């Protein structure tokens, strides 16, 4: 049985997940597979781009965030997936050797209108570096099973 349900995520709640060290090797490996642009692959080529040096693909940052929240709570929860992402902003590059943490803030919570066994939780996730600077923000809604389903009328 999952430990965490929709009822356990109340608006205003904040949690921190991580840290997680992001290595040069994994930045380059992810980029080679999914986003093979010079600024994610090679220091010399990256220094000539707007990033000003090697940085992780923004998609890599999103995938690392997913993994960190999976280990942080999703795998212990009644997660039913997500209908999508409202918004992602790549504010600053994620450089090799950074220890990142995720700050998760519950923005909104509401029961599903169509499915009494489910609730919807809107989160703000922030990817932070060691100094607490925010590198990426993500606003997304999670579908979570309810501990006590709404009684059917």
């Amino acid at each position, binding site marked *: 049985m999952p430990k965490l349900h929709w009822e356990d995520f109340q608006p205003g709640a904040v949690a921190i997940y991580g840290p997680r060290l992001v290595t040069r090797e994994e930045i380059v490996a992810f980029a080679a597979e999914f*986003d*093979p642009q010079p600024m994610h692959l090679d220091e010399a080529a990256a220094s000539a*781009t707007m990033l000003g040096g090697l940085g992780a693909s923004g998609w890599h940052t999103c*995938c690392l965030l997913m993994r960190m929240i*999976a280990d942080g709570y999703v795998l212990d929860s009644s997660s039913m997936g997500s209908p*999508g*992402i409202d*918004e992602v902003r*790549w504010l600053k590059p994620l450089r090799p050797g950074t220890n990142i943490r995720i700050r998760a803030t519950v923005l909104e919570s509401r029961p599903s209108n169509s499915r009494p066994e489910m609730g919807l939780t809107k989160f703000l996730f922030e990817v932070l570096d060691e100094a607490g600077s925010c590198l990426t923000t993500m606003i997304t809604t999670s579908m979570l099973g309810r501990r006590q389903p709404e009684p059917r009328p």
Partner: protein
Amino acid sequence: MKYFEEIQVGDTFAVGRHTFTADEIKAFAQRFDPQLFHIDETAAERSHFGALCASGWHTAVVWMRLMVDHRRGLIEAARARGEPAVGIGPALGFRELKWLKPVYVGDTIEYQSEVVETRVSNSRPGSGLMTIRSTGVNQNGEPVISLVSTTFVERRPEVT
């Protein structure tokens, strides 16, 4: 790749297609999204998805890969014609990413993008900002993913 000035709202382009195998769905999910319905067929059958399906992030990053390959093809074609290779990127982020239907084992997703907005960058006068809506459609014609993203595109040197 076109210069910013040559890009018009309404322009559409075929990005590419990809067939998702069970092995790659599970391998991606083991790394980034190890929820049972992405890594275990039996558990997935018991879930509300009914069968093993790809992480939504997997469906999204395959679009990114196909987009990079598509742009590279345009740049190589321009070079072959003796034209300059126009710079593109980085992106600022994305919005309205919708996972509309699950992507199951063996599904072939065809991705297409449409330009929905163009404007000159305030912070970088040599660049414009191109906003596109990208959609992935499965072999039954059903949209499975959609997102809106904004990217820097180089302007014609003589106008800046």
